[in-house]
């Protein structure tokens, strides 16, 4: 049989052991999601300018389970996955990467910006307390996006996703955790506190939605394409994507946090253990915590930034800009989607942490629907 490689938790000297003798190579390969940086890659250019390190940036991640399936065999074989830095969401895949020892323990002595600028809540996230392996890239919410011209009305509730009037025009996500969460909201359960019995009920509700032909398709990142094409009229969506799509396609899509609630997730930067340029990767990680970089990023992606100081930077940018640009920059600085207030945070729910054993049951429950 094939050996399992469950790793022991890293000890303190592992960090030194790993980083000892590692040097900068002047290059870094960065794997990220689409729509997670402006088209001109402004932050990366700034990074290259500042450090001389060139960046190969690829938008190769569009769903967590897929990405994990893709890299796990390589990591297991001890081979490079072709990337030194990647953005992975909290959730079962992150847990697995961690447990299998596929991630490099971070040398915090080389992350001064993080130490200085990261918001407090991001230093003690439950999935990686103490940021042993990861530091946040952006966080965001999963809500509902829709094209008001098509739906003909405001969308406010999760239940709208079950509205037979939108038969065949509703998009749902195929990631078991994402769709599971929405199922849970639909039956009035907080995902983070759900039980296997709740999963069953939520699945039944989702199955009903599918059986009635309301769901067009279960999407990954491609929901945005479908929404723009008009294949779907309303869909589960990630907050910042809509902002960017409207910007680039001149579309008029809307994003709402449904009244039943929405989930908050964190996409973190991490270094796979087979990385060829870990030092350069670590430098880039830290670079994202410069308030200026964080501001530029927030201006273009409209996700929640882990750097509160970015707000001032954006306001400063807005002051310099004029007309429509100024207005939009001001909006961003005030947007609850970028800088949520504590009250906002209260409305948001978190992913349920699943053990490997639970994961199988959870996945089977919801994949049964998405893989119909």
């Amino acid at each position: 049989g094939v050996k399992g490689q469950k790793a022991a938790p890293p000890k303190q000297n592992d960090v030194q052991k790993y980083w000892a003798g590692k040097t900068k190579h002047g290059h870094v390969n960065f794997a990220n999601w689409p729509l997670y940086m402006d088209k001109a890659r402004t932050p990366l250019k700034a990074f290259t300018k500042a450090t001389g390190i060139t960046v190969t940036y690829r938008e190769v991640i569009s769903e967590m389970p897929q990405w994990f399936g893709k890299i796990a065999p390589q990591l297991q074989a001890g081979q490079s996955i072709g990337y030194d830095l990647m953005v992975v969401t909290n959730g079962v895949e992150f847990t697995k990467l961690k447990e299998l020892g596929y991630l490099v323990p971070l040398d915090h002595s080389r992350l001064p910006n993080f130490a200085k600028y990261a918001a407090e809540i991001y230093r003690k996230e439950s999935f990686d307390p103490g940021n042993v392996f990861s530091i946040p890239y952006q966080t965001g919410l999963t809500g509902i996006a829709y094209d008001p011209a098509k739906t003909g009305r405001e969308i406010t509730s999760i239940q709208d996703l079950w509205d037979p009037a939108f038969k065949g025009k509703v998009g749902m996500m195929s990631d078991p955790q994402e769709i599971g969460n929405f199922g849970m909201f639909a039956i009035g359960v907080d995902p983070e506190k759900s039980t296997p019995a709740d999963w069953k009920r939520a699945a039944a509700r989702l199955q009903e939605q599918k059986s009635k032909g309301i769901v067009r398709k279960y999407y990954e990142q491609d929901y945005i394409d479908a929404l723009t094409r008009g294949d779907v009229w309303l869909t589960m969506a990630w907050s910042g994507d809509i902002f960017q799509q409207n910007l680039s396609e001149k579309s008029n899509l809307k994003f709402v946090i449904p009244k039943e609630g929405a989930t908050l997730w964190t996409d973190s930067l991490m270094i796979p253990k087979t990385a060829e340029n870990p030092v350069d990767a670590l430098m880039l990680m830290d670079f994202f915590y410069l308030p200026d970089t964080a501001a530029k990023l927030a201006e273009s992606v409209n996700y929640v930034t882990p750097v509160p100081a970015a707000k001032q930077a954006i306001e400063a940018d807005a002051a310099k800009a004029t007309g429509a640009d100024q207005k939009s920059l001001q909006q961003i600085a005030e947007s609850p989607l970028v800088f949520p207030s504590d009250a906002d945070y209260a409305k948001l729910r978190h992913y349920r942490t699943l053990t490997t054993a639970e994961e199988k049951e959870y996945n089977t429950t919801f994949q049964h629907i998405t893989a119909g």
Partner: protein
Amino acid sequence: MTATVVEDGSRTARRARGRWSDRLLYAYTWLIIIWLCLPIAVMIAFGFNDAKGRLNLTWQGFTFKWYGQLFSVPDLTTALVNSLTIALIATVGSAVLGTLIGLALGRYRFRGQGSLNLVQFAAISAPETVMGASLLSFFVQLNIGRGYWTIVIAHIMFSLSFVAVTVRSRVLTLDPAIDEAARDLGATGWTAFRLVTLPMIFPAVLAGALLAFALSIDDFIITSFNSGSTLTFPLWIWGAQKNGLPPQVNVMGTLIFVAGVLLAVGNAVLARRRR
């Protein structure tokens, strides 16, 4: 006599019996051809679309600019280069290995021929998903990381049998006496192969190689299992499609299409001239 006398007026009509069914079939054939070519036409057309945003969905005016910015999507270029070089290596590899097998199968009877035929039949008709998956299992088992060379291995594996089958059927039509004639006239085994057998089976080798090239450059399913983090043209398209394909894809698709057509037409013209 079963023949009935028909009045004289329709004499000329009788001489040339009606062919309406032919005309119907003719129209039908063209309909199918148009259907087959429609997506290609669209692909080519939207390579000239002056798309403003990220999505190349609606006609926004004519432009050549994508031809100018053909290589401005760096990954796409890499993927295309990968696809081309992999296809070339796989073509040469499978052409050589397949030709040898085709020769053996066509010219000799030997023990194990049946099993070889069976394996080849299986390799030709096994579902791609299964082949891709099993090769992946194999690499996983041996802890071999996937990448460029595992794609090459897979491509040679699945095109090999096609070349062998093509070459074999050509070898079967060869008069074995021709090889003997060469030997009779003083040629050694290798000289006879080089000067006589190879030139005669060359059209089949070429046809097999073209097929291998086409199979390789177009393969998606098996490649997707064994590519690791290496991207090929179809894989890139598959990935990129999730947030809209840039017009450069249309342009590259068009260029590959045109190159393929030219290659095939050239080959046909050459074959005709040789004949």
